[in-house]
């Protein structure tokens, strides 16, 4: 296949029809490059690409493009995340060019958590454009070779464009249309919110497949293993848009002292098995938050190793 949009590893793996497996790595709250290299090191060889978060939860961290470059140096393929909270359209377009020029090939387009959640709540947010319009912007720059103002881009950035989707937030009926809208705007791949309610996700995917969305875009199912009952309760009660069924909390509680994390991993592994068979699901996005060292074990037990080389 010669007409890759970006030629990224993730794109090649998905286009070849392999079940993709992506990971995530949050940059440090400082210039602790060694810690970043160490965390990323766990993911090497286990995933097709690594999402590098952009000031996630509105907490200041090393910039996502810089951390992405460090991952590149480590031999990992970054999926550079960009949020619209901290940049206007000038900065967004110039960062897209800069990231591409330095070797970044995947980019995930997000609106970004509101700054009131983070550690600089008095900051002025930008939101000049939103995630939907960011997708549109990258696609326009890549495919039309034009900036938002219609001026020509001198060598367009060839990026594989990603977007997020939350199947669980209300209004549920609208969610699949919002996904369709992101695909129409230019998303090549989707990484969903962490999934725990499998029935609801199955229904969401049924609707997406009915609309043929899985043929226009690669949909990766989001998985975050629960480390503890406390984490599950926090996700269930404190994180809006997150759907954690009582049955899962009960199951984790029933695992007994010292065995909850293993039960959480088992649930994640069962999910991954289900996703492998679920129509329209092209892979899994594993968000093992501050649990990067567990990724090799999870990947091994999920039977997704070795990762394909395309």
């Amino acid at each position, binding site marked *: 296949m010669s007409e890759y949009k970006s030629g990224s590893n993730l794109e090649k793996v998905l286009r070849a029809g392999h079940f993709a497996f992506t990971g995530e790595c949050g940059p440090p709250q400082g210039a602790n490059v060694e810690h970043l290299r160490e965390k990323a090191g766990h993911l090497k060889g286990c995933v097709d690409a690594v999402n590098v978060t952009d000031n996630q939860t509105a907490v200041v961290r090393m910039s996502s493009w810089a951390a992405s470059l460090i991952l590149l140096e480590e031999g990992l393929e970054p999926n550079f995340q960009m949020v619209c*909270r901290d940049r206007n359209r000038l900065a967004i377009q110039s960062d897209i060019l800069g990231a591409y020029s330095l070797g970044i090939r995947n980019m995930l387009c997000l*609106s970004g958590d509101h700054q009131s959640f983070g550690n600089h709540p008095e900051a002025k947010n930008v*939101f000049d454009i*939103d995630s*939907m*319009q960011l997708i*549109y912007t990258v696609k326009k720059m890549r495919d039309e070779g034009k900036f*938002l103002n219609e001026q020509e881009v001198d060598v367009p950035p060839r990026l594989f464009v990603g977007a997020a989707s939350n199947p669980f937030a209300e209004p549920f009926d*609208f969610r699949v*249309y919002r996904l369709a809208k992101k695909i129409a705007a230019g998303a090549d791949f989707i990484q969903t919110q962490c999934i725990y309610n499998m029935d609801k996700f199955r229904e969401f995917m049924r609707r997406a497949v009915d609309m043929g969305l899985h043929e226009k875009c690669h949909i990766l199912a989001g998985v975050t293993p629960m480390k503890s009952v406390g984490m599950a309760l926090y996700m269930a009660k404190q994180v809006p848009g997150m759907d954690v069924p009582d049955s899962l909390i009960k199951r984790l509680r029933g695992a007994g002292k010292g065995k909850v994390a293993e039960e959480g991993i088992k649930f994640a592994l069962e999910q991954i098995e289900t996703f492998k068979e679920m129509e329209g699901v092209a892979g899994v996005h594993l968000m093992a938050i501050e649990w990067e060292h567990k990724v090799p074990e999870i990947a091994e037990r999920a039977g997704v190793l070795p990762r394909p080389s395309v």
Partner: protein
Amino acid sequence: MIRSITQQKPEAELDRLLEGLRRVFVIGCGTCTTLTQTGGAPEVAAMKERLSQEGKLITGDLVLAVACDNLTGETLAEYGDQMDQADVLLIMTCAFGVQNIALHSGKLVVPALDTLFIGKETALGEFNEVCTQCGDCILGETGGICPVTACHKGLVNGPCGGTNNGKCEIDPDKDCVWTLIYNRLRDLGRLDAMRKLQRPRNHQAVLNPGKIRISV
């Protein structure tokens, strides 16, 4: 009627702004700040009381009918002597009133309030922002409900993933405006409007600071 919604500055900030200014003339407003109970007659009286206790001399006080109106200049003129005796005018109106009074009096002014937003009283004692005056109105596509104002991120392409039982993830006291818009458009049979990609908006419909001239 839309109003200018204000709240009183923290006392420590007021004390700092009034430091070294002993003689104070206090001005309230009979319109918006009376409604919000931040600068009506009772609040002006309470402010005078507080300042007196702190050793300030109150040279006079006044509650203007509509502080932002052009008639303010004439009313202020009637209080010229009392105002001239003051080191500072402490103004309990919105920022429009403060600027108007500064213009007409030529005196040093200190605002007692912060102006929060342009809004309306939606329930007794509850005020909601209704319009950010963005200059690029999209109400025609959102069922007459404004997401630019009422979505914390000003999103124009539908609800983010943080909708929380019809409330916003950022403030459970506030409705998710996109849920309201969805319900309204569904009732109107116009959900298609939400499925259309809204392109990047023009945030400079009028350059800030806004100024236009019409032919008259």
